[in-house]
Structure formats: C-alpha cells, structure tokens
C-alpha cells in the first residue's frame, strides 16, 4: 500500500520542490541529475533587481494581508452581529472574489482605476489594492468560521460583569480570536506572495513582485535563475508562515 502511495506521491508532489531546489544550484540539467554546481544564481537572486522584487513582494503581501485582515475581521464581526438574511448576503459578497478568476479581478481593477475619479494605474497602490481584494475573501471566511466557533458564553459573561460591547470586543473576543486571526494572516500572506495572474495585469515597471520576475526569467529561458528566485520566494513565504505559527502557538497557550 505504501509503495503505491510513494509511487504516486513522491514524483507528483515532493519531486517538483526538490527539482526546483536542485536546479537553483545548477548550470546544466541534461541528464538525470543537474550538473555544474553553483551558487551564482543566488548571488544574482539576492541583489539588485531581484532583491528589490523580494522587498516589493514582501511589502505588497504584508500590506495587503493587513488591509485584508482588518477588512475581513471587521466584516465578519459585522456579519455575526447582523441578522441571518444580511449575513447570507455578506457571505455571498465576500466569496465572490474567490470565484471570480483573479485575472478578471486584475482586469477589473485596471479598468476601474485607470480612469477618474481614481487614477492609480501605474502606481504600486493598484497592485496592493488588487491583492487586498483577492485575499480579503479568505480572511473573511476564516475569521467568520472562527467567530461561529467562539462560545458566546465568554462575551455574555463579560457583558454581565459590566463591560460595554466595545470593551468586550477588545478585551475578550479579539484575544480569543487571535489564533484564528494569525492563521488567516498567514494564509493571506502566502496567497499574496504567490499571486501572479492579477499582478501580471497590473504591475508598474517600478513595482515588480517576485512571481512576475520569476515568470520573466523563465520566459526568456533563464530557468535556473528562475528556480533560484522561486526558492527565495518559497523560503521567504515559509519563514513568515513559521513566524506566524510561532505567534499562534504562543497565543493559544497563553
């Protein structure tokens, strides 16, 4: 049974990642194993244009996640407070960005912000806005799932002790939601880091996130440089996710 599993699993899932990792250190790959070990791609991938792309990606992902988290949490809290019918409308509204192709989100953002009253085309803001729109849906979904799981007894106990709704939200409900909030933040961050399709439609020349750079590299045939960039992207994503999950375990064991 396990041999079947590994026959399917390893080539399909583990191999791609290992291959990318291997290729990032190589100059040639024309037989079973890559050849021409080098770290040159990394040197290229950690300075100049590539480094700038990395910081661009990080800044975009962080700001988009924060915006999405704030908007998603707020909307989820509002939905929980509203009646059933409104909540359904809100639910439907917030899942739309999941269903709509991200290319179309990119196109839509492009169309909307290329004309007055908001002329943001060619600025970094349009990229950040598109990312925020794309990931807000995920933030909303995970936060509202967490809110329904939260025992109302906590908020009620707090209210009976004389805490106003705002105080209850700030001192009781948000701290209790913190693990879910960080999980949602991690998800948003990872999605935004890897987002390519909407970004392709929107990015201005001075704001090139990593995925676009990877695409550009592979498109002109520089596969090995692309791999190195991809490894940098994966590493950055994983590091942030790891940090977020550290915060999360701390928060849940407090």
């Amino acid at each position, binding site marked *: 049974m396990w041999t079947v599993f590994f026959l399917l699993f390893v080539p399909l*899932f583990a*191999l791609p*990642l290992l291959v990318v990792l291997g290729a990032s250190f190589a100059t040639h*790959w024309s037989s079973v194993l890559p050849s021409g070990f080098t770290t040159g791609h990394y040197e290229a991938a950690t300075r100049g244009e590539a480094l700038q792309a990395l910081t661009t990606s990080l800044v975009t992902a962080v700001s988009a996640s924060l915006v999405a988290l704030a908007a998603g949490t707020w909307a989820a809290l509002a939905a929980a407070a509203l009646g059933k019918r409104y909540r359904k409308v809100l639910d439907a509204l917030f899942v739309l960005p999941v*269903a709509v192709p991200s290319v179309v989100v990119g196109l839509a953002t492009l*169309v909307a912000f290329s004309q007055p009253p908001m002329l943001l085309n060619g600025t970094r803001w349009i990229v950040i806005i598109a990312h925020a729109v794309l990931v807000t849906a995920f933030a909303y979904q995970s936060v509202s799932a967490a809110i329904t799981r939260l025992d109302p007894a906590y908020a009620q106990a707090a209210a009976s002790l004389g805490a106003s709704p705002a105080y209850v939200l700030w001192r009781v409900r948000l701290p209790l939601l913190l693990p879910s909030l960080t999980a949602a933040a*991690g998800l948003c961050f990872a999605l935004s880091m890897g987002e390519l*399709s909407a970004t392709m439609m929107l990015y201005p020349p001075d704001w090139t996130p990593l995925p676009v750079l990877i695409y550009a590299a592979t498109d002109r045939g520089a*596969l090995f440089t692309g791999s190195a960039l991809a490894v940098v992207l994966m590493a950055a994503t994983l590091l942030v996710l790891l940090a977020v999950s550290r915060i999360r375990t701390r928060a849940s064991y407090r």
Partner: protein
Amino acid sequence: MALLALVFLYPLALVVQQSFQPDTGGTSVQPYADVLASPAFREALWTTVWLAVAATVGCLVLGFVLALIIAFVPFPGSKAVARFIDVFLSFPSFLITLALLFVYGTVGMANGAWTDVTGAAEGPFQFLTTPWGVLLAEITYFTPFVMRPLLAAFSQLDTGQLEAASSLGARAPRIVRRVILPEALPALAAGGSLVLVLCLNEFGIVLFTGAKGVTTLPTLVYGKAILESDYPGACVVAVVNVLISVGLYGLYRVVSRRAGA
C-alpha cells in the same frame, strides 16, 4: 461594506459596462458578437472546459486514493505528510510548472535519463507544451485541494464502523466501496467542484508551460488586455469567464453546505 463595493464590485460593473462599448464608441453588443464568433475564443473556451473537467477527474481519483492511504494505513510519517500538504497549498501554482519543466522538459530529467540510457538524440517526453502538460501540472497542484476535505471527512468517520464491517467479513475493497465511499461523497463533491472552479480560473500554470498552443479563457483575457490592448474584447471574455465560474462556485457552495449538514 462600502469599501468592498468600491474596490471590488465597482470595477466588476465597469468591466461589464466596457464589454458593451466597442472602441468606436457607443453602446452595442458588437464586442460580444465579435468575440463569440472568433475561433480563438471558441477554442479557448473549449480548451478551458475540457482541461478543467479532466483535471478535476484526475484530482478526484488521485486525491481519493492518496487520502485513503494517509487516513487508514497506519504509518509513522502520515502526520508529516498531512503537514506537507498544507505547506504545498501555500505555494503558488506556477512553481509546479517550473518544476515540471525540469522534470519532463526537452532538456529535463526524464528526457535526459532516456537519452543517457538509449543514446537517442531526443527524449520521448514532448508533451509539456501541449495541453497534456497543463493537465499534468493542474492535477499535481490541485490534488491537495481534494485531499484536504477528504482527510477531514475521513477523520470523522467512525473507525468502529470500519472494524464492525471488517469483523463481519468484508474485504478491504468492499469496505472502501460500501462504507467509506458513501461517507466521502459530500467531501468529494465539494472538493471536486472547488477544483473545477480553480482550474477554470488557473492562469499561472498555463502561462508558465510556455504552451503557446494552449489558450484558456484567463490567458485570453490577459492576452487581449495587455498584449493587444483590446479592452472591450478582454472584458467580454472576462464576463463569460466570471459567469461560468461564479455559477460553478455557487454550485460548490450548495454542495459543500449539504456536505456540512
């Protein structure tokens, strides 16, 4: 609320509006007629749909088998594997395609091995730039999306039920068919329709395979808007794409809600 309407609904509305406005000005359905009649669009539509359906079927079969093994065959590393799937989901889709280029590409691993062994000048694996390459990449990337709900469903399955079935003399294939499959059906349906939607909308994979012959609706949108600057045309394709995937996503929500009930 107003914010969301501003940054999401307003642009979408503009897209719909622009799809009715050809470059010559005025409002007409001319862009629709043009685009719908064009062979490029029809081909893209057809490619998109069959790729998505085929990829979904592939993901369902593969995901079911893999999830079955992870959930029911005791193995010390199965937790790590489940963890790995989560990590896998957090990576962008084009990474897979990038990797496949090295594995099955013209100068990649598989062909390299073949030429080493047989001495042939060219390897047998030339499918990567065809729709089959896209299909392989999509199946690889989206299978975890099927496995996750399945694993969740399996973990809720009462092992006592399985033990009872096997104590009654049922063999493994029979247990899978009669006990596990009915329980997993809602999760399969939910995961399947999610993958279908995601495949319809997939952009990175198609773009990265460098398969110039493979055009799907999302790449058509991109091509029309950025490369040809044909915004009305792009908007038309976008509207069609949105209609298909939102419809399917609605189906997914209904199915997954029923699965949750």
